[in-house]
């Protein structure tokens, strides 16, 4: 068991939490709460304790508490984290500062507006555009484990937005497609069943697409699922450059980009 057995609730810890209540017409501020310290608690447990026992007005999103639904991303001591996976013991006995994810508009307290991200998924066409039409009655598209391995890493994105709030480019240019949307575009481009790379190229290779990325690499650093969006962007740049050269050399022999194999 993670928690030591002799532990009681006598030890406490302080959380300094960002508050913004638009209804009150007040400017954003910080509120400090004291919570019991337990070494198997995560930051989310502490927030739930505050909500249940101290201050019912504190607002934040959460759901699965096991690192897969992607709801509970926040800045914890300045770093984007899933609060369900950030243990108090890694900060104790120091105070923890909890803020909404960087670079997103704040709706209230720790809740950000991420509607734009879903619009970006639509622009990138994050769905399978079959390379070859096949009816369901004809069975599955064959895909070897090696073909699956080519794109599998990029399917692991939980849309938690940590990569966006680590990305200085997104911070300056909110229209930048951003790490997760580009990685998901690449996820389909690299899927052996997909033939939609050309349709995605306009958006992925646009001014708001991959070329905005200055390869800071922070996105991959903070990704809780090791998706490596920075790698996806680099790979897309190489593909785009190759295609551009191919386009120069043989303008009419335009080949499928991305998933060429």
């Amino acid at each position, binding site marked *: *068991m993670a928690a030591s057995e002799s532990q009681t609730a006598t030890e406490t810890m302080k959380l300094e939490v960002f508050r913004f209540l638009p209804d009150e017409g007040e400017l954003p501020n910080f509120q400090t709460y004291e919570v019991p310290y337990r070494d198997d608690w995560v930051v989310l447990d502490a927030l739930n304790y505050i909500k249940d026992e101290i201050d019912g007005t504190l607002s934040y999103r959460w759901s*699965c508490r096991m690192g897969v639904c992607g709801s509970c991303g926040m800045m914890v001591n300045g770093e984007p984290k899933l609060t369900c996976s950030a243990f108090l013991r890694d900060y104790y006995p120091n105070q923890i500062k909890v803020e909404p994810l960087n670079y997103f508009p704040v709706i209230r307290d720790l809740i950000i507006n991420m509607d734009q991200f*879903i619009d970006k998924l639509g622009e990138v066409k994050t769905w399978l555009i079959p390379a070859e039409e096949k009816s369901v009655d004809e069975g599955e598209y064959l895909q070897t484990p090696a073909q699956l391995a080519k794109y599998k890493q990029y399917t692991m994105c939980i849309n938690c937005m940590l990569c966006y709030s680590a990305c200085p480019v997104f911070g300056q240019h909110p229209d930048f497609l951003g790490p997760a949307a580009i990685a998901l575009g690449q996820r389909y481009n690299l899927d052996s069943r997909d033939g939609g790379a050309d349709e995605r190229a306009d958006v992925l290779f646009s001014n708001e697409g991959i070329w905005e990325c200055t390869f800071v690499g922070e996105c991959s650093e903070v990704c809780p699922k090791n998706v490596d969006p920075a790698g996806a962007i680099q790979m897309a740049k190489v593909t785009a450059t190759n295609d551009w050269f191919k386009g120069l050399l043989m303008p009419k022999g335009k080949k499928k980009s991305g998933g060429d194999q």
Partner: protein
Amino acid sequence: MGSSDSTCLSHDILIVGGGGAGLRAAIAIGEENPDLTVGVISKIYPMRSHTVSAEGGAAAVIQSSDSHDHHCYDTISGADWLADQDAVETFVEEAPRELLQLEHWGCPWSRNPDGTVAVRPFGGMKIERTWYASDKTGFHMLHSLFQTAIQYDNVTRYDEWFATKLLIEDGRCQGVAAVELGTGQVRAIGGKGVIMTTGGAGRIFPFTTNAAVKTGDGMALAYRAGVALKDMEFVQYHPTGLPGTGILITEASRGEGGVLLNKNGERYLANYDLGEAVDVNDERHPVKRTMELGPRDRLSQAFELERQKGNTLQGEYGDYVHLDLRHIGEKKINKKLPFVRELCQNYVGIDPVHELIPVRPVIHYMMGGIDTDLQAATSLPGLFAAGECACVSINGANRLGSNSLTELLVFGARAARSAVRFAEQNSTINKQAITAQATQEQTRIREQFFQPGKGTETIASIRVDLNRALEQGAGIYRTEESLQTACDQVRELKERYKSVELADHSLTFNTELIAVLELGSLLDVAEAVTHSALQRRESRGSHQRSDHAERDDEQFLKHSLAYQTDGNPRIEYSDVSITRWPPGDRVYGSK
């Protein structure tokens, strides 16, 4: 897009719930008739839905050595004969096509070397038929469905809207009233056909694999509107959750060969009529439909009996046993169970490649739900339901692992087709009337929850007491006395609920308001669960009565139907459909 009438949003089909079943339904409508408009209301962004947490896989016959009859028999015997056999046959028949369809939509199913879809063994299944995407199957299914759904222009999403009431006019469900979280406004959203896909209600219990959002909202909405909740006494304990958090360790870990050990290191399941313990290095291991691959109800009950014998270990979060995966080896664990390894490392600080995983039974799934027929229709015209919130029933008294992910596809699609047919014949929405109802609903909510000084009760105190009442009264083993106590406690809690005082009276993203509405759902669902369990004086599947230890087909080979009244719910019964499999013994390994 929604109606141009700014006071009443409306669509041809309205779906409440954005998880697997809801998204499958939305896509089905997009595919079948792009001229129809669809609204999808979800209290969270759809990709956050609890489908995301499903790990092990989705069942459908695909191997030539398998057959529909095998899948039917496994499901029906697993259900302790309470499943409707016509529903099971339909489900089994449509299952492979649904999973193939998902493959065509990009789901990254794990593969065999030849590129065909791979399957793994699962509890209670005689033959391997569980499709999987490593051990994040629900996650991949949900994201594939969500990303596929984005492309349909006729689908409008109402992300972060919470439905509070079914709007019924002329005897038909014509939409819902819903709070827009961002603004706190209650709006009417009309639909000629309305589909509930809101998931289960594991949060009535304290210790559950279920996400915070699993509060039975859709079940409660239907129940309040006079629709029966069916077979609610059947609540599944999954045998392997992490103590404390309740995080799920998938059954696939046993499908891949993991074994359960008591405090003496013995494979104790061998003592509970689940077959013999074949050595883990024997090539026959794991033997399907035996031991660790028995059904979930039997394994959870074995844990409880083993606990009573003093053979479990004691920890800070109660008793537990060990799940041993060490013999599976690092390579296979990384390939097939990487999420299990990650969860164990993050949440209990152990590495299952080298260490034993502490596990105990944990509330996982509601077999019961909104009473529907094979077409996913409820008794309320215009209202359909699918997925965990519904009860068709294919799961009867105990669901087999990996049937539920498939169920939400099969019946999500069926609900969509039924709703479309209904909408064709009922093409009007009384917008004026439902708008007036929504206005009243807004007034009711604000009067009930936004009036300072009304009471002293807090959400947390009622929720904690509710959780305790259910755990103590309606757990793995139940008695007349424990259930009567739970019924009484739920009733008291419903009284206390009337004097909840909220700290938060603001309109912008008031999560405390949502929490109190969810608590209302939990109380209604708990009422149906405890009363249905009290009335079922037999033991069947997940419903075990210490005071009525035997299955009683004569009296109780029946579905229970709980109807809400002003007092205790009225419990009625309906027949179980038996087609080709007369009730028999459930045999797992022995005999």
